[in-house]
């Protein structure tokens, strides 16, 4: 049997169908959480951000234009929530939030140099990198999600990639 489309699930959820809403949640939760984790770099924050993102999205389901895709809309909410929280934390403490041992990314056997380089990007660049490569959104979708011009997204991506290349070059020389 054909799986229901996002549009079907959104319409049913709007009418109060909790099973449809739960199906929509399960379809997008892993990606939303990973995106939140990749932006925040902390498991505890990712839990909060992804959870808040879904809560806000479901509360606003009545206003969602179901002619548009659900995924990018949800990821926009999650990415913006992550950026808001990190900016607030940075603004309040005056520093980039320090990672504790408990919160450190769990890439034990992964590409540690690249991971460190991604974590070293500014919030704005990190977000577009995560949405582009982690979530698989196109620059146009990212631009819609973050309410930015497509040119800004492309330039942030290009600069982020250049910064990552430079960081990895230093790593090779070292």
């Amino acid at each position, binding site marked *: 049997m054909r799986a229901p489309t996002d549009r079907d699930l959104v319409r049913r959820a709007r009418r109060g169908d*909790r099973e449809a809403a739960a199906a929509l949640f399960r379809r997008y939760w892993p990606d939303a959480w990973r995106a939140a984790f990749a932006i925040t770099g902390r498991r505890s924050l990712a839990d909060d951000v992804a959870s808040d993102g879904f809560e806000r999205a479901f509360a606003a389901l009545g206003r969602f234009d179901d002619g548009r895709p659900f995924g990018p809309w949800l990821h926009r909410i999650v990415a913006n929530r992550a950026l808001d929280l990190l900016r607030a934390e940075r603004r309040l403490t005056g520093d980039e939030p320090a990672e504790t041992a408990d919160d450190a990314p769990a890439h034990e056997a992964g590409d540690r140099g690249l991971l460190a380089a991604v974590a070293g990007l500014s919030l704005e660049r990190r977000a577009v990198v995560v949405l582009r490569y982690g979530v698989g959104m196109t620059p146009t979708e990212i631009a819609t999600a973050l309410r930015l011009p497509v040119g800004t997204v492309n330039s942030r991506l290009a600069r982020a990639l250049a910064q990552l290349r430079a960081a990895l070059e230093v790593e090779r020389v070292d």
Partner: protein
Amino acid sequence: MSTELEGRLEGLLAEAPEPDAGVEASALARALDALPAAGRRPRWLRTATVALAALVVLLAIAAGSLAAAGALRVSFGERPAGRAAPAQLQLPAGAAGVLALVDGRLSAAVRGGFRLQGLPASAAALSPHALYVAAGVGDSLVAMAPDGRRAWSRPAGGRVVAIAWAPDGLRIAYLVRSGRGLLLHLVWGNGTHDAIVDRDVRPVVPSWRSDSLALAYVGAGGRAVVYDLGHDSRRVAGRAAPVTALAFAPAGTTLLVATPDAVFAGARRLARGAVEAVGWLGRRPAAAFAAGGGAASVRTLGRSGRPAERVRVRGVVLAIAAGVVVTRTPGRLLAVRPPSSVEPLLRLQPAEQVNALAFRAR
């Protein structure tokens, strides 16, 4: 065309860890609760609801009259307030500010419109007139101004676990978890002149005397200690231990001290029972005791310790402050203003922990 770096990025981010199943279940419950209500109720049900509400109002007025006439016992019954609890922290009527730290996320609402939601924090407190919020953020102590901007921040040298702002607003006491234990600090309200007062204290929120010249905290031995700022001296207040909560009177010098099974005013025992919270309702000391069946009994206590008033409230009492009893029921945080006002403050998930609460009256 995809470069080697882009290929590596795709591989790296795909390896992000999996979310915890418990977190997913809790997030799903929250998300489903946030769904908009579907459709309007039928007309007959609305009519019945209005009639029931009118009956409840009449009963509340009658109960209030009895209480005013000196009846000792007022009960809110087993039914909670009918209104649904809000997803965001609500400022109750008559309050200047309210703050809640739930599962390490700080929410605050103050009368001037300042609203904060979901900031990761380890401890928090409101300034005396609820114009500022002090919070432990990362390993810093931060004061936030009414517009949400940082007024100041200073490194705390560890996780801040409790904060108490002096009634005159000029000093803040805070506890910091260091490698060996808990330190009690005092800092001026503008974030300068930080000093350590005690290097080994218990994790109980300190309480300020109404004149802001003395501070009660729980020392390493588990007893209440009063630190006199003017003389830089300390004295142990009573023999009760282990002290679980402290509350100086809003006027005067009486210190309420709670242990797990009794309440003391200084050295004098006022009442026995399984204590949930202590505080002041008006000028009277008050204590909440577990009453079984998911309810608590809140008593205001006379000089001899005899209950002057006794109010039964639903749920677990988390705080008594500024004339308000804050309780937690399954799914909700409520502000109970004896004898008969109950306002939902916030929707809670069963697994969510309330780490700190603050309430300021106008």
